[in-house]
């Protein structure tokens, strides 16, 4: 249970909101009605980050953390860009994008996990940690879908809200890229 909670806390950590910002970017075109696409995109992200988390935590791959951090910021900007180009339509390609970008985010989770994990319980703790990340992710996505739903109910032009939100995410992610480039 401890590692499960740790997984949740890691993804919902406001100190490092980059993973949440990615989920915000990813879910921009989604709504409760598109639950199948939501499930596919989030699962693809999970598959991607679970795989690379394991590879990074076992040190099979060990890219410099500066590059991983930069990569995470780039995935956020690219995801927003992708949705803007597609006019916030739910397109099949987003699932692949989510999976590939999940690989990059998993490298970030991996560096954290490799520090906290003990050699005698590495895999035993890996499963609840991953499930915790997944649970945190579902929580964040549900909150976002609820916000989109509420905006749709009270705003006569909900698409304008998504444009504005895209602008905010894009600005933050570009700022993040510039910050991380200067490391």
């Amino acid at each position, binding site marked *: 249970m*401890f*590692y499960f909670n*740790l997984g949740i806390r*890691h993804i919902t*950590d406001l*100190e*490092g*909101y*980059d*993973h949440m910002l990615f989920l915000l970017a990813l879910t921009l075109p989604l709504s409760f009605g598109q639950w199948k696409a939501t499930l596919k995109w989030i699962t693809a992200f999970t598959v991607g980050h679970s795989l690379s988390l394991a590879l990074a935590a076992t040190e099979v791959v060990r890219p410099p*953390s500066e590059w991983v*951090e930069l990569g*995470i910021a780039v995935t956020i900007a690219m995801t927003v860009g992708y949705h803007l180009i597609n006019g916030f339509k739910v397109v099949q390609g987003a699932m692949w994008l989510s999976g590939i970008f999940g690989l990059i985010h998993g490298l*970030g989770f991996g560096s*954290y996990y490799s*520090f*906290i994990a*003990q050699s005698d319980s590495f895999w035993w703790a890996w499963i609840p940690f991953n499930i915790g990340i997944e649970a945190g992710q579902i929580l964040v996505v549900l909150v976002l879908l609820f916000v989109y739903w509420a905006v749709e109910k009270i705003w006569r032009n909900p698409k*304008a809200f998504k*444009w*504005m939100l895209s*602008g*905010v995410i894009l*600005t*933050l992610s570009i*700022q*993040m890229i510039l*910050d*991380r480039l*200067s*490391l």
Partner: protein
Amino acid sequence: MKFLLVIWFWWAGAVAQDPAVHTKVRHEFYVSVTDFNVDIEKGKITGVVKTFPDDWERAMNALLQEKVMRYVQLDSNQRAALHGQYLEQHIQLNLNGEAMAVEYFGTSRGPDEVYLLFTAEYGDKELEELSGNWSIKHTLLADIYPSQENIVIFHYDGRKQTNSCRESNDYRLNFNF
């Protein structure tokens, strides 16, 4: 739409220029991992704290601030004394309400981490007398990072329990064996 674009550019401009608005250069995590082991063969508790070297150095520099010194200026004996002072202040161990003094033992360096070794004497108690409520207060680095989380793994008679000392639990933990 034009109005929204104007709002966005205004906001983007404000963010880009305001140094107070930052994007967290890295997803930092302030964490340490500590093993406590009830070692019957040695007749004492042995412990290891694993932390990041840069965080540790920052904590040491904070301690040295009053003396207007830097950690890098210290020789190995001075460093050991400082490590001991800090560790003994920041880790408190109790068994069934009885305090056990933590004593710094040494330091070891890994490629990306520093290990601080310590012991705590429990006298001539038998294993059965060491069961009960173990209470730990672990505030390592919490003085410099408010979001510091100190993970504790407690080993007792082939069993182990894991939890963490963090701000939300006032950096206190209880383990029952």
